[in-house]
């Protein structure tokens, strides 16, 4: 598809990925070419989550009561525009980015590209879906507990959360600044490296590893049979490319509570006035979570921040022994939209990803081998070079 066809496809699509489409995308690329300003990312189409500002385009944060026209472009977007990339559109998301199903009560749910009756996951579900169906080349999203990696895993694409603080967050609507990351979605690890290396967010040259050590996170939660099967096939593939494995049993209940305390306390502080003024317009899941953040005592937040330090130190120690730590990205494959609001779904989607929002380590999801619905393999590492070295070798295979 050329750019004009991709714009048409984005407009025609019934998956509900876009809240705004830039109908002039093809003309903008042509104009850049004419003046010789189309750089190394000439014509790369961006699907930008609707909590990230692009000057002159509407921004809602997944909430119509927050809609405005953005005056500036976020640095996390402008670095790609400077190389000739163009924004295809702003993508549908979980309301306020405070959820992982992408069932948005105002704009409707985003539909899984592999089965439209299923969720995409979220909260960057529109960006993941747009990349998965081939209309966008790079999805730009945010990840506060797994919001880039979860939808990427459920849609069968690659989702990358850089280390904490690696990217500027100006022009990105904050949810919980201690945990917020900007992240990226592409169809392959190769695409991710090709695009991110241009803006110096990924290494340009990688040596294929001869031997490496990896740990498998065990005991975190119970996986579905489908996830379990695909995950162990992915582990076999890691072994086939030179990985030597250990199994690491981890009780994460306290870590999960710590992330929730930080997320909800900071989100409640960000949105308290909105909750008082527009609470009645919010989806019930969002207003319940924000209200819980209002009700949490300061001792919970401070304790949670101490747990965050403790788990970060623990993982820093682990990364001295292991090159990478792996797990399924989510404990379940995509679930039906109708059933996704069930309370049991949320922890199954978050259990593995949220750990690295607490520790700040880089993490990526890559598709695991499966004949059915997509399953993600999550790889986390001490730094980006270690991460991409293993992820690229995994994608290429033995």
């Amino acid at each position, binding site marked *: 598809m050329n750019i004009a066809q991709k714009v048409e496809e984005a407009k025609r699509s019934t998956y509900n990925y876009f809240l705004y489409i830039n109908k002039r995308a093809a003309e903008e690329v042509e104009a850049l070419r004419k003046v010789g300003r189309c750089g190394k990312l000439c014509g790369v189409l961006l699907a930008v989550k609707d909590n990230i500002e692009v000057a002159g385009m509407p921004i809602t944060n997944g909430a119509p009561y927050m809609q405005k026209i953005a005056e500036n472009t976020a640095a996390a977007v402008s670095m790609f525009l400077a190389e000739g990339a163009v924004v295809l559109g702003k993508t549908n998301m979980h309301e306020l980015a405070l959820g992982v199903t992408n069932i948005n009560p105002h704009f409707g749910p985003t539909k899984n590209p592999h089965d439209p009756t299923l969720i995409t996951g979220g909260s960057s579900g529109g960006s993941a879906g747009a990349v998965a169906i081939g209309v966008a080349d790079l999805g730009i999203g945010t990840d506060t507990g797994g919001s880039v990696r979860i939808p990427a895993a459920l849609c069968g694409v690659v989702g990358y959360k850089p280390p904490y603080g690696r990217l500027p967050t100006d022009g990105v609507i904050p949810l919980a600044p201690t945990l917020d990351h900007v992240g990226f979605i592409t169809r392959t690890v190769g695409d991710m490296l090709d695009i991110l290396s241009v803006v110096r967010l990924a290494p340009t040259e990688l040596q294929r590893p001869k031997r490496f050590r990896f740990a498998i996170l065990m005991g975190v939660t119970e996986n579905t049979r489908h996830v379990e099967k695909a995950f162990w096939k992915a582990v076999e593939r890691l072994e086939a490319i030179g990985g030597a494995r250990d199994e690491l049993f981890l009780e994460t209940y306290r870590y999960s509570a*710590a992330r929730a305390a930080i997320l909800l306390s900071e989100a409640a502080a960000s949105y308290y006035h909105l909750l*008082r003024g527009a609470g009645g317009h919010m989806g019930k899941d969002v207003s*319940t979570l924000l209200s*819980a953040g*209002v*009700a949490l005592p300061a001792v*919970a937040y401070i304790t*949670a921040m101490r747990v965050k330090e403790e788990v970060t130190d623990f993982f820093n120690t682990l990364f001295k022994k292991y090159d990478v730590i792996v797990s399924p990205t989510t404990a379940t494959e995509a679930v039906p939209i109708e059933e996704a609001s069930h309370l049991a779904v949320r922890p199954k989607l978050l259990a593995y990803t949220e750990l690295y929002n607490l520790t700040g380590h880089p993490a990526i999801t890559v598709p695991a081998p499966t004949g059915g619905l997509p399953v993600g393999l999550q790889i986390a590492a001490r730094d980006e070079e270690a991460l991409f070295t293993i992820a690229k070798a995994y994608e290429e295979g033995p």
Partner: protein
Amino acid sequence: MYVKKLLETLQISSSETEEVEKLVEKILEGLQLV
């Protein structure tokens, strides 16, 4: 008491208040604070 008052200012329903209390309790338990 202050929590109840705070939640009253948010004008949420009593069933939602109950859910909020459960969620807060679960987090406090997870942090071993109760």
